[in-house]
């Protein structure tokens, strides 16, 4: 008898300016029980992508917003906020074009 374990997964929506880091995809499914784990999985192995989202201290940069559902994760406990099953995270950066 083998025991199966399920790892929580989250869908991350990636804004157009950052899609170059994920092969042009607009959303990516990653494992993670917290926002931090999911974003770490998203940026794994890509230092420049990680640098784009996080400060050297590992905090989310002030010009990058991440939403769990429709709420800014900074209002939900920050990067350590737990992800419910089937969570959708939306990464958002400023767009300038008009």
């Amino acid at each position, binding site marked *: 008898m083998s025991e199966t374990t399920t790892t929580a997964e989250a869908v991350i929506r990636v804004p157009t300016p950052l899609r170059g880091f994920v092969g042009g995809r607009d959303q990516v499914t990653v494992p993670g029980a917290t926002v931090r784990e999911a974003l770490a999985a998203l940026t794994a192995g890509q230092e420049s992508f990680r640098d784009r989202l996080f400060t050297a201290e590992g905090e989310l940069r002030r010009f990058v*917003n991440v939403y769990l559902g429709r709420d800014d994760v900074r209002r939900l406990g920050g990067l350590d906020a737990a992800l419910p099953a089937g969570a959708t995270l939306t990464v958002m950066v400023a*767009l300038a074009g008009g």
Partner: protein
Amino acid sequence: MSLKDRRLAELRARIPEVAAAEALDLQQGGALLVDVREDEETAPGSPAGALRLPRGFLELRIEDKAPDPARTILLLCAGGTRSLFAAEDLARLGYADVRSVAGGFSAWKAAGLPVEVPPTLDAAQRERYRRHLTMPEVGEAGQHRLLRSRVALIGAGGLGSPIALYLAAAGVGRLTLIDDDRVERSNLQRQILHAESRLGQRKVESGRTALLDLNPTIEVVAHDTRLDSTNVLELLGGHDVVVDGSDNLPTRYLVNDACQRLGVPNVYGAIFRFEGQVAVFGGGAPGERPCYRCLFPEPPPSEFAPSCAEAGVLGVLPGVIGTIMAAETVKLLLGLGEPLAGRLLLYDGLRGEFTEIAVPADPDCPSCGPGGTVTLSDIAAVCGA
């Protein structure tokens, strides 16, 4: 006794009549005074603050203006006869306290009571705005409000094109265009305000030509200049709504901070490729609506900023976002519905999806928070690779 006179005698026995001076007292106490004469009769003058609703439309439209059937309704015509017939109709409709003003507008004037000359639409305006006039949410009062409105539009480009065209078509009385660019052929894939025949013209002049061709009855003010911290308050001041269709982050921050200073709502939209964002920032009571800095407190450093190289965008994308911006502007001007405030609408053109995220007002916001310290400044151009 004629049939009419017999009927009037019956009505006088049943419908309470009030003298003009008493009607004014009741009006000031909360009663609704309705002038039921025809438009051509009310055009030279009508009691101040009266609702002007010709008798032919009375039952059809009264509930939009007087939803509470217990409110006292005072009906006024020229001499006090038609108002009796109208009063019976409203009583039958379900209004509990309907009275007729004895002697009508003649008695009102003779008593020296306050009169106003209602703004009127000419025949061409009635024809032009017919689809607005037939909607109770806009109607004649709303159309007058649009005609008296002033909107400043920053950028006569991709977003600015549909915004300017729809606001001009809607009859926004004064439209101020601010842009320092010239029309190039590469603009025409999306900037539908301009045309091949106007290549090389200043965008604000080309835009002015197009807008006055669409609606020659409005005023279009063209400022062929770039917004900066020294001119922004002067250029945006005196407008009811500012619409930000600019194409760079420094201008977006400057417009936001200036609108906060002026207390004017800022209708924001931004686009890139197949994606767009739109929201209404500021313009409410302090702390009520967020501003752009509640969403993004500061611009990214240049190495992380959006590219300043000509960014690709699907030609129709500014149409999708710009028309939403125009709709929000008209809503703000008319005080209709719920503004797109406290939330940001995201459009994903490839998926054909709209999603919404919450943007609450940030009490620590450097621009709109109670201790806001932002001064108007020209942020150096921030450009990514």
